[in-house]
């Protein structure tokens, strides 16, 4: 390595700083302009990080699992009794359901209804969280080699988690629904039964979402569930987003102010499912709209 005198270093430092700042600024400007694109730097770094994050996650989860299993032993006996009773109840319920399923199949055949195609779910493990305290993304151990694509929805058994925003061959970055940038077409209650349509977006408060543009004349109550409508062109319809926890009623001219708590436990999730879902192609006239260019790019 070339040894430089202290004077040379002091002379060179401002120029190097300006060059590095400019480089970073260009990166930022490019990132802000082209949202959701695939970057070589991101992809390579995420692949490299996977070799560290995966073993660390495995070790920590096994250690915490060991301690929690010791703690769980205490309540195991009581739980066992409860579970035995529940199994008996469920057996009765299952027999009833078997009958209903047979009846359903017969009726479907009778009406000649085609089986609805359901999307595949790819189970994956959360191997990392956002290294910056400012954001809330997660990194999962499934990437483009597993068939994951940008904008695919991510769920847990509780509900919607977010969508894939960056990809590497082995991992994917998931932006959570609590992020302010995310906007999800949503409805209070089931589609077809409710008129309370709006957009769910993140807030600066953690674990809280805001539902916007719900007409003040529609009846909405605290405790009601919020589901996706599928109109945003990213998420399929019918996924549970959360439940209403706070409501400031609007009027005929002002919308309701609705705060929703996510159904999925975003802070503690360890395993998630990536829905291998691709939204239906937009009609040609919609793709020609000036503001449609950004979303149709892949």
């Amino acid at each position, binding site marked *: *390595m070339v040894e*430089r005198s*202290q004077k040379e*270093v*002091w002379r*060179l*430092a*401002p120029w*190097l*700083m300006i060059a*590095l*700042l400019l*480089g*970073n*600024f*260009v*990166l*930022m*400007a*490019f*990132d*802000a302009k082209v949202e959701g694109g695939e*970057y070589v*730097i*991101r992809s*390579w*770094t*995420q692949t490299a*990080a996977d070799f*560290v*994050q995966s073993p*660390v*996650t495995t070790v*920590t989860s096994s250690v915490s699992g060991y301690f929690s299993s010791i703690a769980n032993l205490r309540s195991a006996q009581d739980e066992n009794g409860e579970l035995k009773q529940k199994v008996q109840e469920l057996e009765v319920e299952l027999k009833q359901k078997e009958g209903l399923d047979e009846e359903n199949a017969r009726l479907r055949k009778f009406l000649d209804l085609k089986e609805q195609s359901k999307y595949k779910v790819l189970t994956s493990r*959360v*191997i*990392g*969280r*956002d*290294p*910056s*305290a*400012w*954001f*809330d*993304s997660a*990194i999962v151990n499934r990437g483009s080699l597993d068939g994951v694509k940008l904008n695919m929805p991510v769920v847990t058994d509780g509900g919607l988690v977010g969508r894939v*925003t960056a990809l590497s061959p082995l991992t994917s*970055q998931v*932006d*959570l629904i*609590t*992020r*302010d*940038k995310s906007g999800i077409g949503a409805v209070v209650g089931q589609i077809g039964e409710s008129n309370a349509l709006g957009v769910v977006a*993140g807030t*600066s*408060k*953690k674990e809280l979402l805001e539902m916007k543009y719900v007409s003040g004349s529609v009846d909405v109550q605290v405790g009601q569930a919020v589901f996706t409508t599928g109109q945003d062109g990213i998420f399929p319809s019918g996924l549970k987003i959360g439940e209403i926890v706070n409501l400031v009623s609007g009027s005929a001219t002002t919308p309701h102010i609705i705060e929703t708590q996510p159904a999925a436990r975003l*802070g503690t999730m360890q395993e998630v499912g990536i829905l291998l879902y691709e939204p239906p192609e937009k009609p040609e006239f919609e793709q020609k709209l000036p503001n449609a260019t950004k979303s149709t790019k892949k």
Partner: protein
Amino acid sequence: MEGVKLTIALIIAILLQWTLRNVWEPLAFIDFPLIIIVYAAIQRNSIRALLFGTISGVAVDALSGGLMGSSGFSKTLVAYAVSEIARRVYLDNLILRIPVIAGACFVSELVYYGVHRLFGQTTTSDPVITIAYSVIATTIAGTFVYLGLQSMSTDRARLRKRKEVFAPRRQTRRRNPIRLGK
């Protein structure tokens, strides 16, 4: 040798930053790479500190939901500022380094938040809380890291110095002056 040691420390800091949040959420408030960047800047090697700032910043940004290059931008700026201060003020005392790491963290977080606002991006966390927690956590962690790094470098430096100073001198046995008087 100092350069190799600091580079290894920076790599460890980046790896910790990537992994520790998944272990325990509050650890996200500690900015490990910044601690090493400030240490490098205090050693009056501004070029090394600047390169450390950009590399570690981009490495963290690549895994973050924030803008690519934003952390690199803030850390590079802080590295330059600290190295300029270290050029003018003697910062070899640990007590003086504590306010420097606290100030560096404050400026870094503020710039990070500022550039996101500049590009129309909103953060998930509350800025006041995030900055406050980050400054406290990074200052505490930084103090311990500096203590460790300082003890590692001073022990060897002291040994080297002692060898250089005393080796060529021949130590003679002092005679007892009382006996001499006899």
